[in-house]
């Protein structure tokens, strides 16, 4: 059977990798389209008029109406949507900020680096800490350490990100004075230093689910036949653990990480606000409070894009890593 099957499979016309990629890309496109559409209508349903916000409380009805006309907000909703799509497709952007008149792309580009750095730091931290905790928990199953590590998520899962952020500021910023309480430091080291607490805060929200998933996976793999084979062959425990068990249990956790990425990005935007970091998050908040529609849409669009692309990259990585899925090309 095995002699014939590889060739038979190739003949059978299983989708080649680029076809799979095309399907994945199409799926990503649909997700992004849905997100932008939903955001477009949602922010317009929410009460609050950008014109009133810009002109202030004492503006006359006429001046508000005039501004609404200039901004195109007096048009029927569907026509606004068509205009929005038009700018999006011709310029690849959501237009100019209502408030400042600056192109949305430029606004985002200015704020993006610090946010991206924060996300990257949080990811690294979450991955590293989860890995250590999961390995310790799985190898000490049902012992004190395991119980402690398992209680930790149960407590922290109920804590909102911003609250954790505030606690950390109080503890490390105000009382211990180890870290700055907010803002961004000068230069690379200053930047990293000031981002430490925010990164810990964001990572904190991810660690519980990651640890739980990885621990469960590892326990399952530790019970599997091939681990018994390796143990029977008296291969050192650390080799079994790090070379075999971890690799085999990493995949589902990696996938979970991809799914959680949207939460992580959301968390980052909130945490920026708590720590007074001028990133995408603070841009989003000011835009929301001033009903700066194009900016909100732009941020939603880029965030959706980032989530989808990274998710896709993770899927590709998983697929490249696992020889079993490679077969099915």
């Amino acid at each position, binding site marked *: *059977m*095995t002699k014939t099957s590889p060739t038979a499979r190739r003949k059978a016309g299983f989708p080649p990798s680029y076809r799979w990629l095309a399907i994945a890309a199409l799926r990503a496109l649909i997700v992004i389209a849905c997100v932008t559409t939903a955001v477009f209508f949602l922010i317009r349903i929410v009460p609050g008029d950008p014109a009133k916000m810009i002109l202030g409380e004492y503006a006359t009805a006429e001046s508000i109406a005039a501004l609404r006309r200039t901004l195109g907000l007096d048009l029927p909703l569907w026509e606004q949507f068509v205009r929005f799509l038009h700018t999006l497709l011709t310029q690849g952007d959501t237009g100019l900020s209502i408030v400042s008149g600056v192109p949305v792309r430029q606004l985002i580009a200015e704020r993006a680096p610090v946010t991206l750095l924060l996300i990257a730091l949080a990811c690294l931290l979450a991955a590293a800490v989860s890995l250590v905790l999961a390995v310790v928990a799985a190898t000490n199953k049902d012992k004190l350490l395991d119980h402690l590590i398992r209680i930790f998520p149960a407590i922290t899962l109920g804590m909102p990100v911003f609250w954790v952020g505030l606690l950390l500021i109080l503890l490390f910023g105000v009382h211990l004075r180890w870290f700055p309480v907010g803002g961004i430091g000068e230069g690379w080291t200053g930047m990293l230093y000031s981002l430490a607490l925010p990164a810990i805060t964001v990572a904190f929200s991810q660690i519980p689910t990651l640890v739980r998933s990885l621990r469960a996976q590892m326990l399952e793999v530790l019970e599997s036949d*091939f681990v018994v*084979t390796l143990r*029977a*062959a*008296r291969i*050192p425990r650390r080799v079994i653990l790090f070379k075999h068990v971890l690799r085999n249990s990493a995949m589902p956790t990696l996938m979970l990480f991809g799914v959680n990425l949207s939460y992580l990005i959301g968390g980052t935007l909130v945490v920026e606000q708590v720590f007074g970091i001028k990133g995408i998050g603070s841009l989003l908040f000011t835009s929301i409070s001033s009903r700066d529609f194009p900016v909100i849409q732009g941020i939603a669009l880029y965030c959706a894009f980032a989530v989808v692309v990274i998710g896709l990259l993770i899927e590709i990585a998983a697929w490249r890593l696992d020889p079993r899925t490679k*077969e099915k090309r």
Partner: protein
Amino acid sequence: MSERETAAAAGKNGAKIGTEPRRVEEANAVHNSNSGTPGNAEARPAGRPEIPTATAAAQVRTTAAADPILVVDRLTLSVASGQNLVQDVSFSLGRGDSLGIVGESGSGKSLTLRAVLGLLPSGVKRTGGEVRHTVRSAMVFQDPRGALDPLCPVVKQVAEVVRYRQGKNRREARAEALKLLGLLGLPDSLKREDRYPNQLSGGQCQRIVIALALACRPDILLCDEPTTALDVTVQRQIIDLIARLQRELGFALVFVTHNLAIAAEVCTRIAVMRQGRLVEEGPSVDVLVRPRDPYTQMLVEAVLPLPEFVSESEDRTRDSGEGGTR
């Protein structure tokens, strides 16, 4: 394989039990040369299966290796709830011996093997008796594909065991692994490109698992239903392979199976287990030809008989004319 059958068929013309005594005598010889005590009590009756049952029964009781390398002494295994899965199981094994443990599902045969290996599944504990052995053991499992890391190329897995068990560097280990795979009849293509377990057939995977076991240079090879998941023709190859390796390398063998015929082919002694207890133990032929325990009798009777078929060469000479009739 076919020559073996021819030989068996030829042997049957002379004496009805042509093949079996010879097999037992072989093992006997191995045993003697190792233990140094001529004429072990338990193996001798097997050479003459015609002796009366009563005598055989008396002899079987004393079955114990003279210079054992493995002693299982009143072993009891239990789960947390207190239920005994294996109870008071005792047997011993001399250098180069082979013992088949047979029984139906739930008889505790696999657990006994895991206890010998020293790796009980989680939740099962040894609550009585002991397993004594001072030599290296290695194990071959029922599900060959599950017994290999799916994300690791197979050659690498064998090389890893060679490296850690034989203290070699990476390159030496790989060379040694490839040599082992060649010995086990695995294709040369493994040398050139990385192969993962899912790309190999069940039989090939089982050969890899055997290679892993041999890389440990075992004095005792523990086999847990190593052929149950395989097709008959592949099963035959693996059985022959294990028998050949045992002959050449001289390790002792504990072979767990539900198939009495396989146990008889591979092992000189058979132990029958039922519901965690050892109900009968003795030389293979004795146990299967004159089972004393009613349960063993039932097992033997449940084996579906197959008639002898005329081998290819004889068939040709006898009726070369009627080849194509259906």
